[in-house]
Structure formats: C-alpha cells, structure tokens
C-alpha cells in the first residue's frame, strides 16, 4: 500500500495501517524532536504524543502532504514541551543546550578512537549550538539542514510564508556558525570553520 492508501485506511480506523506510517516516519520524527528539544526522554515523549495525536485527528486530514501535516503535529508537540519546560524549569534550557544528552551511535569499524571522540565532541557542540537558537530558528534549521525539508514544506509545517522561513533559516545558520566558530578549538584540528 502506498502512503495515500495507508492514510485512507488509517482514517477508517485501522491501527495496523497507521502503524505502517509510524514505522516509516518515526525515525525522522524522533530526530526532529531530539534536535529541537535536546533531550532524549523529552524527544520520546514528544514523538509518542505526536503519533497519538495524529492518530486521533487523522480523520480531519483533508489531503495534501501527509508529511507536512504530521510534522506540524510534531512541531506543536515540541513547542508544548518547550513551553512546559519554560514554566517549570526542572532543568534549565541553558543546561540542556550546553549539555545535551548522549545519543550517538557506537564507533564505526573504519573509525579510529580519536575520530570517534572528535565526532562526539562535534555533535555535542552542534547540538549545544542548536539549543541556543530561538525555537523558530532552531526548527527551521533542523527541518531544512538536518531533515532536508524544502522551504515550501517548512512554510506549510510552521504555517508561515516562504520569506519568513528564509529569514529564520538565514539567522539561525549565522548564529550557529558563530557559535561553532567560537568553539573552533573543539572542532577537527581547526580544519573547518576557520576564518
């Protein structure tokens, strides 16, 4: 069954069909949630909440891009969690941004221990830099550069214009680039992002 048929079956109440959509999108959804929230547990909560909410409201899906519709729900779930965290900061955003939880895969067979450590450091710095961006810019950067969404899709997901997406993306990238440049001693032998 293709995506449209799975969506139609899910609208008819088929959990099995919806679960096929979940399997197809869960990695992307979880990764977006993790990059936006910077915390594995919170990302898992947001992902679960998003899929549950999507299943409950899929009858209201009127066609178009299912992916954009699904990621709008994910975005809302992430914003809800961010707002909750802001109201009750058990862990401050600053702390999450500067010390993101470890979520990296084991070293590859061809990867030396030094490269593995360097990759982990780089990933940690990128995640920390993302955490310092305003949520709208962070979301635009994650959707475009990490997940490969087009400007039009991001505009659909965030319910904004393509011009707004361009602007948020440009500022977000600049901020992130500046953050990484300020921590360039951690980057790979100073080969990258050097002025």
């Amino acid at each position: 069954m293709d995506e449209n048929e799975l969506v139609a079956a899910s609208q008819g109440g088929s959990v099995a069909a919806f679960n096929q959509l979940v399997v197809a999108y869960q990695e992307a959804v979880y990764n977006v949630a993790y990059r936006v929230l910077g915390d594995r547990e919170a990302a898992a909560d947001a992902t679960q909440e998003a899929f549950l909410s999507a299943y409950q409201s899929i009858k209201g899906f009127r066609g178009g891009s299912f992916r954009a519709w699904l990621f709008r729900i994910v975005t809302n779930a992430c914003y809800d969690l961010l707002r909750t965290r802001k109201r009750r900061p058990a862990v401050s955003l600053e702390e999450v941004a500067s010390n993101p939880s470890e979520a990296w895969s084991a070293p590859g067979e061809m990867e030396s221990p030094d490269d593995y450590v360097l990759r982990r450091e780089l990933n940690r710095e990128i995640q920390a830099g993302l955490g310092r961006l305003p949520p709208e810019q962070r979301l635009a950067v994650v959707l475009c550069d990490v997940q490969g969404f087009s400007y039009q899709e991001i505009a659909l997901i965030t319910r904004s214009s393509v011009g707004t997406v361009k602007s948020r993306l440009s500022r977000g990238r600049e901020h992130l680039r500046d953050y990484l440049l300020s921590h360039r001693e951690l980057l790979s032998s100073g080969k990258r992002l050097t002025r």
Partner: protein
Amino acid sequence: MGRIIGEVRQGHKRDQLSAYIDNQLSPAEVEEVRRHLGQCPACAEELRTLREAVMLLRELPPVPLPGSFTLVEPARKPLFDLRGLFRPRWAYPALQYATVISGFLLVVLLSGDLSAQFAAPRAAMAPSRQAEQGFLPSSKDVPSEARGLAVPPAPPPTLGAKEAEAPEGVPVAPPVTTGAPEPRSKVVSTPPATPLPLAAARAPTPIPLPSPWSAGVPAATATPPASATPPALARVESGPTVAAPTPEVRALPEGRSALNLPLWRGMELGLGVVFFALLALTFAARGAGRKR
C-alpha cells in the same frame, strides 16, 4: 541594526547567502550575489563558513530510536470489569464485613454439623448395642411399654410361623422378622417404638443434639412425653393397618433426617464457596487500593 544598515550601504549580501546556498534566489538575485562575492572577500568568507556549518548539520548522524512508537490496538472492554467493583471507597470495608459474616456463618454451620455427628451416634449407639447383645432393661428400670418396644437381636429361623401370632405377641416382633421391607419400615419407623426413649432413660448424661438437627429430629432430642408411648403402642398393636410414618423418621438413630442431609451439605458447600470468593475479592480489593 547598525550593522545591517552599514552592510546595505556597503552592498553586502549576507542576508541572501543562506538562500543562495539553497538555490532559493531568483536568477537575477543569484547574478547579483555572485558579482558581489567576486568583489567582497568578507562576504566570500562568510559564505564559506556558512556552507561549512550547513555541511556539518547535514552530516549529523541520525539519533538511534529508543524503541518503536507503533500504537497498540486497544483491547476490547470486558463484559464485566471487576476493577470497577473496587473503585468505590466503601468496596474494601464492605467486602471485609461480608467475608467476616460469611466466615462466621460457615463456622457455626460446620460446628453444628460436627457436634451432631459426634452426639447422635452416642445417643443412638447405647440401645442398639444393648439390643445386639440381647440385653434388655429389667422391668424395674423400664416400664412395660418400653420393654415391648425393644427390637430383638436377630430374627429366628421360624419367623414365618410366628407372624401369625404377632398381634398377640410382642408388638415389635412380627414386622421385623418378616424381612419384607414394607412391614419392617412400618415398625421401625414408628416414632415411639424406637429404643431412643429407652436410651434416654438409661443414659446417665444424655447429649442434646444441636439446634439445627433438633428441628428435624423431634423424638430423639429429649425424653418424650409420657403420652407419647401409648399411641405408639396402640399403633403397633393395631398391626399393618396403621398408617405408615414418613420414611425420614428412620434416620432418627443417626441424629438427622435423610431429606435434610443433602440440603445441609449443600448449604455448607455453598457458604464455603461464598466465603472463599469473598476472601479472594477482599484481597483483590486490597491490592487495587494499594496500587491507587
């Protein structure tokens, strides 16, 4: 703000570099940015570092999933949900009280049954043993009517001949010695003709039957009134024409009626089942309360 105004005055294209990387500019804008980059080393450097940052983001490895996020199909609601029984606050105390009451009733029932089982044979054994050993009370101890009611130990071989003399002889002998079920039942079932009054008279401390059995065994519980014997004798003397008593009276020596026995056992069993079911429910309600 001042930086942006300054950049615009100097003709910098920093705001368009991000879109330029993604080919999101119009051909005219692209041409304009390219021309500027050729003349402005600062913007060219800006573009290079920005591209590197974007490349780093695109090279980020995917974060492994903590598990599957597939939804679980909701289970069908059972027809009778026991958990609903435990929700009210009064459920646990109510179950406790019901369990205690049913347990108490069960104990009462069982103790009555046990005491009846021990008491009735003792009360009934004495005369029957005496009868088996051929021991009959002397005329000093027992009135003549009682003596006449004693069952002889064994039927003699010439019973058939004695049957004819039965009306004038010992009243008990003819029906018992016939061996036929009908006359025997008549005689044995005659309430006052049983040796129980005799046994009651001879027993030093007659054990009264418990209350549940006393209702079913009126003649065996206590010394019968004096007026009870003559009618019994009269009935025996009248021979087979006397109306036969109900067969349940046969069970008098055992201390309970034959018809009441299954009912009594059924009550014990039912109460036992109810008690243990209530006990299990009480523990379940206790566990549910702890979980909450």
